[in-house]
């Protein structure tokens, strides 16, 4: 090698620059003189108009974009890309007191204790008859396996259930077509039950749990119905069958080699891994008839109650497990090339698309052919007793070399599929049935998942696709070494995709679900009704305001309304006390939250919606007279909304008293 040592790096850069300048020159010279954005050939002159939502107007779609390592779920409007809200899910959020106030701390409880962070990945919207119904969004926490439910009447996380026997809860949180179940597949196989054993004994001993969580059709309550204990592969992504394939669920697997080290080499040895097809209706029937094995477990089930504005955490001690060998005909393996990642089912339910991340092709399986192969008992061996179907028997077609590094496919409901390619950094549109590539558009840069509103349902809204990019480098104003990740909006209503907009995102925009705004916005609550407030420390009128001492605990039953607290003068608190501020927002007007904090509080502010009660604990360390104030600019007299709390030395006899306007 003669070239390219550090010494001639400079020379090399010069060469690069001359190449670059040649290209730049060329584009200046040859541009057609229509004032196109030179760096961005896909932009047409009216792109701005097509994403512009005039002040006061509403967007057509909600996009729920996960935050990846932020642990949260962001709510954007499409086509504008405007950010409306970051819903705290798995991570503490000081802005909203999520995981800081006394009411929501139990939501982050797990079998490992209080866990203030997670990696939120795949949101999915609840469905009725295979169409989005806009009631809930479900999302998985990867790291400490959990599934959360966000209630779209309030856009708040109202339930989190921990998943036992799981690790790296990645193949989640996808719903069946009547939201019978939300499904959570493990990424890591682990000893089940967990135990102290040599890692080298992985093969044959570690297992992968696929968890089916039932969702109550009335109140949405989640409950683990059963866990299917599968071979020790890695389970990557999953999607439900729909239409004819309703009742089945499909999971991509990799590491069918069952390696426990250096997976980048050892999990890439087999030419094919599998898509596991699970007939959950059959297993449901089996467990309803008493099948399965109850196994000791320990997992948290956390529920936020809208009436008490408070969460409870319950430890559950048992889980029902099912061995696939005990339910013949319930699970089959469909060979799929090279460590498939995406596992996507088209709106008809016929095609199951596997994106082998180390394959250059996309593999599409046919549900009809799968049933025929099962019917004919044509198997190509088995894995731990689970029949393997023959690749050729289930293959519907192959999209040949559409790009490099296929990842995820969504559908427009018009017979087209759209797949992202990480390595070649593009979205490729292709036709179901003929498998021909119709169009490709670059992504800036390194696209992961993509989203068509309703793309995981029988009825996609095929107007836009959103591509979510991991890397932006030079796309925005620089902000030091850490720069934003991004989402890009393409119009897909024509034959060719058209890039309209890119916008920065919160955290890693890992995956998204979108829905027509009309389905959701009519149900969105404006206030919590004060008369329905059942918080144990809530007050419904100023007559109920009080301060009580119980040992060294002081409980302040406080109200807030434009523009004062009641009480706003409190005395008789002592150093060493634990002072609970229980604060009720008495407003019954839309969009009048109030906030509160007190000097030196070792926790976040509270941000309290009309009709809601929240609590924080303050442990004063120094005698004095300390202020508290409203932290949300609420009114013309917001700056007058304040109070004092007097702290006396430990052991003093200052009388406990409280007042307003005396």
């Amino acid at each position, binding site marked *: 090698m003669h070239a390219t040592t550090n010494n001639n790096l400079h020379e090399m850069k010069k060469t690069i620059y001359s190449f670059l300048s040649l290209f730049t020159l060329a584009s200046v010279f040859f541009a057609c003189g*229509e004032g196109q954005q030179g760096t961005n050939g896909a932009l047409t002159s009216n792109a701005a108009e097509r994403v512009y939502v005039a002040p006061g107007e509403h967007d057509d779609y909600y996009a729920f974009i996960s935050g990846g390592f932020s642990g949260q779920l962001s709510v954007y409007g499409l086509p504008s890309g405007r950010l409306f809200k970051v819903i705290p899910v798995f991570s503490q959020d000081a802005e909203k007191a999520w995981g800081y106030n006394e009411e929501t701390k139990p939501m982050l409880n797990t079998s490992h204790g209080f866990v203030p962070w997670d990696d939120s990945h795949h949101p999915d919207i609840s469905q009725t008859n295979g169409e989005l119904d806009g009631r809930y969004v479900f999302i998985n926490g990867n790291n400490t396996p959990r599934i959360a439910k966000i209630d779209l009447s309030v856009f708040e996380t109202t339930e989190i259930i921990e998943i036992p026997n799981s690790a790296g809860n990645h193949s989640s949180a996808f719903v069946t077509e009547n939201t019978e179940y939300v499904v959570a597949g493990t990424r890591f196989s682990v000893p089940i039950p967990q135990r102290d054993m040599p890692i080298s004994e992985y093969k044959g001993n570690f297992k992968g749990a696929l968890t089916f969580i039932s969702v109550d059709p009335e109140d949405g309550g989640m409950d683990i119905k059963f866990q299917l204990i599968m071979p020790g592969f890695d389970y990557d992504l999953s999607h439900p069958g729909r239409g004819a394939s309703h009742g089945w669920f499909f999971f991509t697997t990799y590491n069918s080699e069952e390696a426990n080290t250096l997976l*980048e080499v050892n999990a890439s040895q087999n030419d094919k891994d599998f898509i596991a097809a699970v007939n959950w209706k059959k297993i449901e029937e089996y467990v309803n008839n008493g099948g399965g094995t109850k196994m000791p477990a320990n997992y948290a089930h956390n529920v936020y109650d809208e009436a008490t504005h408070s969460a409870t955490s319950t430890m559950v001690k048992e889980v029902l497990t099912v061995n696939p060998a005990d339910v013949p005909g319930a699970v089959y393996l469909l060979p799929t090339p090279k460590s498939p990642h995406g596992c996507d089912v088209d709106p008809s339910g016929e095609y199951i698309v596997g994106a082998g991340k180390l394959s250059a092709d996309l593999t599409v399986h046919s549900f009809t052919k799968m049933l025929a192969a099962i019917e004919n008992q044509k198997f190509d061996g088995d894995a731990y007793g689970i029949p393997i179907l023959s690749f050729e028997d289930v293959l519907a077609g192959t999209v040949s*070399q559409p790009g490099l590094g296929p990842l995820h496919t969504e559908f427009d409901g018009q017979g087209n599929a759209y797949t992202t390619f990480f390595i070649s950094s593009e979205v490729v549109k292709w036709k179901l049935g003929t498998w021909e590539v119709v169009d490709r558009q670059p992504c800036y840069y390194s696209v992961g998942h993509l989203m068509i509103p309703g793309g995981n349902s029988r009825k996609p809204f095929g107007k836009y696709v959103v591509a979510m990019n*991991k890397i932006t480098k030079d796309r925005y104003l620089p902000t030091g070494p850490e720069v934003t990740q991004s989402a890009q909006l393409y119009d897909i209503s024509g*034959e060719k995709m058209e890039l309209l907009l890119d916008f920065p995102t919160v955290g890693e925009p890992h995956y998204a679900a979108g829905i027509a705004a009309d389905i959701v916005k009519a149900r969105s609550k404006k206030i919590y009704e004060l008369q329905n407030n059942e918080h144990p420390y809530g007050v419904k009128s100023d007559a109920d305001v009080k301060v009580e001492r119980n040992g060294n605990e002081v409980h302040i039953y406080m109200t807030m309304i434009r523009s004062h607290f009641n009480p706003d003068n409190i005395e008789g608190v002592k150093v060493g006390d634990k002072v609970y501020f229980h604060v009720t927002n008495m407003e019954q007007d839309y969009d009048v939250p109030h906030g509160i904090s007190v000097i030196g509080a070792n926790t976040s502010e509270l941000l309290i919606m009309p009709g809601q009660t929240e609590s924080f604990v303050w442990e004063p360390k120094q005698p004095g007279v300390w202020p508290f104030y409203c932290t949300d600019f609420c009114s013309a007299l917001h700056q007058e909304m304040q109070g004092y709390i007097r702290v006396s030395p430990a052991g003093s006899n200052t009388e406990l008293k409280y007042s307003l306007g005396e």
Partner: protein
Amino acid sequence: MKTINRVTTKLGLLAVLLWVGACKQGPQTEGNAAQEPQAAAAAAKTAGQAFIEGDVAKPNVLQIAIGSPDHSTLVAAVQAADLENALVNAGPLMVFAPTNEAFAALPEGTVENLLKPENKDALANILKYHVTPGNYSKDFLKKFKKLGQANNQDVLIEVKGDDVYVGGARIVASVPAGNGIVHVIDKVMLPPSE
């Protein structure tokens, strides 16, 4: 440098043709969702991570190839196949980079033929056969029996003494890159026909 000059001329010509072709179609109608494919393709040629300027980061595999006078034929081929942006991705990417000499050893006329626009797919297939999603040192490659290449075919690894052969080509040098590694090889690897 003869090859590179010829190739640059060809590329230039190609670009001119594409743009002229695009302009001939006339101005785009407003609100027309269907883009001119040529225009989009030509514009895309100068967009993407490959064209970020002034990067202080460790050079990526493409930049390493561009900077090496021994790889001008390879670079020309990558550009003719529109693969620049695929080589600057986060990857990781392992590129087996045949030297100019290795290209010159191919039968007379092979390279010229592959660089023709109508052979772009065949060229891309050969080039992708030289790319692995991964980042392994020469020594580490001894652990492998085969590698899965970006064109969807496997290539065999052989170890002879201290030497590592990939698809029959010997690794003669290795350069770590910002997004992977470049292994310089002494032969062009031709993908086996299926």
